[in-house]
């Protein structure tokens, strides 16, 4: 019996693989032999191929898009649909990012297949685990129609190291029919020196209890002392205390860091949806009845304006 092929859409940015790509490959190996599908990569001296080799990928399909214009999701979905027809994979795996989910949705329609999104575990029998309703309920499902499409939640699966390889690269020319929405410009907004919120090992987040925009300086100082990113609750972003792009929660970003420190955040269900899978949760809040204490590993009922400076001083002593 030959091992079945699993197509994995590689996530990358600025010439580097995204962290989730390793997670996708690990998830794919539960089902068969991953074949990496690479889209929008340079054709000469591609550093991504070598990086895929370090993750044990034996086979890379590099899709060429000769049009020189970038379109949103449609070309990747069409390319994958054609690969599904040609190669008959047992499944297609993508990252459950905004782009990945859009491609997955289109692919499901194109290939008349079922899809499952935001998967946190994938088993060898094709059963996928999802956490729904702000993470309060755990559901196992499987796809019953077509070639299963699995969108894996970034940060949920621990990537397993594998034997490095030198991948065989196959160039693919794909016929594109639809043009769709055209990306006219990519704008990078200044974010300073802190790590990306969704990638950070440590997230320090502030809520309404921070008081005012100036109070967020304390949150930033604690984040910087721990090498972490800054997050904010919806109450804080809606109240103009901190920019919207840093919002953690159901309508904001989902984070899964090793350490999450919630400062002055009451912990509405919607906020917990975005951070409850953090490994260690620390809570600083003046109100002992705040629901966020229910999920705290270490909670301090107190004023963050005195607790944080004391913690900063203690961290400074340690740092020497």
């Amino acid at each position: 019996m030959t091992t079945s092929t699993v197509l994995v859409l590689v996530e990358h940015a600025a010439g580097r693989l995204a962290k989730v790509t390793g997670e996708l490959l690990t998830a794919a190996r539960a089902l068969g032999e991953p074949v990496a599908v690479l889209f929008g990569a340079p054709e000469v001296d591609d550093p991504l191929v070598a990086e895929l080799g370090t993750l044990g990928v034996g086979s890379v399909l590099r899709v060429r898009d000769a049009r020189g214009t970038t379109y949103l999701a449609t070309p990747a979905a069409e390319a994958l649909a054609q690969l599904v027809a040609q190669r008959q994979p047992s499944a297609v795996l993508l990252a459950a990012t905004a782009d990945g989910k859009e491609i997955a949705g289109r692919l499901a329609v194109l290939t008349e297949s079922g899809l499952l999104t935001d998967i946190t575990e994938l088993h060898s029998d094709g059963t996928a685990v999802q956490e729904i309703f702000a993470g309060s309920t755990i559901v196992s499902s499987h796809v019953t129609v077509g070639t299963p499409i699995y969108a894996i939640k970034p940060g949920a699966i621990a990537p397993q190291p594998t034997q490095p390889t030198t991948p065989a690269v196959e160039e693919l020319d794909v016929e594109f029919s639809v043009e769709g929405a055209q990306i006219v410009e990519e704008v990078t907004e200044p974010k300073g020196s802190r790590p990306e919120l969704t990638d950070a090992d440590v997230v320090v987040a502030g809520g309404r209890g921070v008081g005012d925009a100036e109070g967020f300086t304390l949150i930033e100082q604690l984040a910087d002392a721990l090498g972490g990113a800054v997050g904010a609750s919806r109450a804080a972003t809606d109240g103009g205390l901190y920019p919207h792009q840093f919002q953690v929660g159901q309508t904001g970003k989902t984070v899964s860091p090793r350490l999450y420190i919630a400062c002055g955040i009451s912990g509405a269900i919607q906020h917990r949806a975005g951070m409850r899978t953090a490994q260690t949760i620390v809570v600083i809040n003046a109100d002992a009845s705040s629901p966020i204490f229910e999920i705290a590993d270490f909670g301090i009922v107190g004023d963050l304006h005195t607790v944080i400076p004391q913690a900063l001083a203690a961290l400074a002593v340690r740092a020497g």
Partner: protein
Amino acid sequence: MTQPLNIVVLVKQVPDSGAPRSLSADATVDRESGDLVVNEMDEYAIEEALRLVKAHGGQVTLLTMGPEQAVQSIRKALQLGADAAVHVTDDALHGSCAVKTSLVLAAALQTLEWDLVICGAESTDGQLAVLSAMLSQRLGVPALTGARKLTIADADAGHAERIGRIERQTETGYQLVQATLPAIVSVWDTINEPRYPTFRDIMAAKSKPVTTLSLVELGISPSDVGAKGATSHVDDVAPRPSREAGVILEGDEQAGSKLVEFLVSRKLV
């Protein structure tokens, strides 16, 4: 002179995300035990449609797929200011997956005249965030997804067709994305600040037309949708195991230092 814009806004009735939610015995979203509300992100979609129609002229129609009781949420959504609503309802739709929901909504959209379809980027219950992409694929029109800003440029000497432009939030900033109309746009809650209905709006909503559509009228077989036609199946549902209770310090003047000791003990610093 600017051309009028006819806009369809997709609206979904969901359980209130601020209260505990659960699945029913058949693994569909429980719509019996809690309060049912208009999906929050849809209010931003409605607001955006109303602002566009105010600037360009045209009509806003709401489109919902859901059980009979979803009409309550349609009426609520109409209070915000749309002109009319269409309600796709059929017992056979119960348990439909996202793929089949998009099939039904695409068929319903084909019975309506529109230049733009606007929807919330995701619902608070399913949270798949795939519907706009699926509809785009089914209808063969472009999708401008995840907008935090939307503008419509009229056709002019340079462009034969009207163009929709969005700012699309990304991890590192945003993308400017454009497409010719007709198009589908999905919006995040950063796009605007939805209005509150006035007493007059609330009264006016009572007499706005709500048309219902059944599967027969859409030419879709009942066996192709609902639980029977679903493309995935739920095997098991369980509550999340609760976290072990943590250490809570109260009235401790050394709490800040103890926090650092805790982080050290967990090898987090």
